[in-house]
């Protein structure tokens, strides 16, 4: 666990360094993923959800095209919307473009990484790798910590 977290930090540092050293290049190397977290699951029948902030530190717009993880057969970015009558619905969000210098927040009640068809239960205290694929063909992998079922954010 400690080792995994250290790896995440190293990855974040690496991404930042790469992003700073090559500011002119637009691409997934300019992506910084922060505050990733998810909730533990009960077994494997229910879908899981993961949250994070994806920041584009580059000078060109980037498009997040898909997700991959050994944890789930069908990971997909979904969006929850609540209409004026208070009815919430959820649907695939499609591709998400992040303008240069901007970030996209995947957070409860909005965008989230929906983890459908879990291969194994999500256990509190563990982490899992989640790969974000971008339109330039690049990929960024983050280790997502699994918090308790009742977690409200990356700190709880």
């Amino acid at each position, binding site marked *: 666990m400690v080792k995994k977290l250290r790896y995440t930090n190293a990855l974040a540092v690496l991404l930042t360094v790469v992003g700073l050293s090559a500011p002119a290049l637009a691409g997934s190397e300019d992506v910084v993923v922060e505050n990733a977290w998810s909730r533990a699951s*009960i077994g494997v029948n*229910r879908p899981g*959800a993961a949250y994070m902030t994806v920041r584009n530190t580059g000078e060109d717009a980037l498009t997040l095209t898909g997700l991959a993880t050994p944890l789930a057969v069908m990971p997909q970015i979904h969006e929850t919307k609540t209409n004026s*009558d208070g*009815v*919430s619905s959820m649907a695939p969000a499609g591709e998400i473009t992040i303008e240069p210098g901007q970030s996209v927040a995947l957070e*409860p*009640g909005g965008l*989230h990484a929906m983890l459908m068809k879990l291969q194994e239960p999500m256990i509190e205290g563990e982490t899992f790798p989640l790969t974000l694929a971008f339109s330039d063909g690049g990929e960024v992998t983050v280790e997502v910590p699994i918090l308790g079922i009742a977690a409200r954010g990356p700190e709880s």
Partner: protein
Amino acid sequence: MQRRHVVQYGAAGVGAVALMLGFGWWRVDGPGAPKPASQRPLPLSAMEFRLTDHEGNEVGPGTVIGRPTMVFFGFTYCPDVCPTTLSDISGWLEDLGDEAAQMNVAFITVDPARDTVDAMAEYVGYFHPAIRGWTGPEDQIARAAEGFRASFERVPTEGGGYTMNHTASVFLFDAEGELVTMIDYHEPREFAVPKIRRALTEDVEGAT
């Protein structure tokens, strides 16, 4: 000459009728129509449904009258909104501490096919102990939703499964079962706790 006047009057008449019809539609069925009072949840005493809580007890609207009550709809296969609502409510109850001890909190599933009594028991066990999970036959769930003026709909998903669209608001009733207010899904937490206090104080005022 004469004929041209008739045509002109006729056209003006048709125009006036169309305008009146249009105005009538706007007022009655269109965006100008007043919100029907029927969209407000009924008092608990006017509702009728029979469900089972996560400990196997028979429950209904009568079970919660007598104490302030918080009710919301959801389902345990919901990855985003429902765990968020349940953990928000758990946080509000923690903030209220002893104040909330006399409150009923019911989480009614809109997906009874998957949310059996056992599934509800396991799920609510992860949240504040005051939260009770209610499930039951589909027709009784539908009657409950009707009383709260809540809606739900089964939506197929890509992977061959399904998800549920549903009303995500939290309903607050006083001890007599009258609706006090609703907490909308995206309302900041600092608004929620005072609203719950209002439901709790209305009870105190009613009792004295």
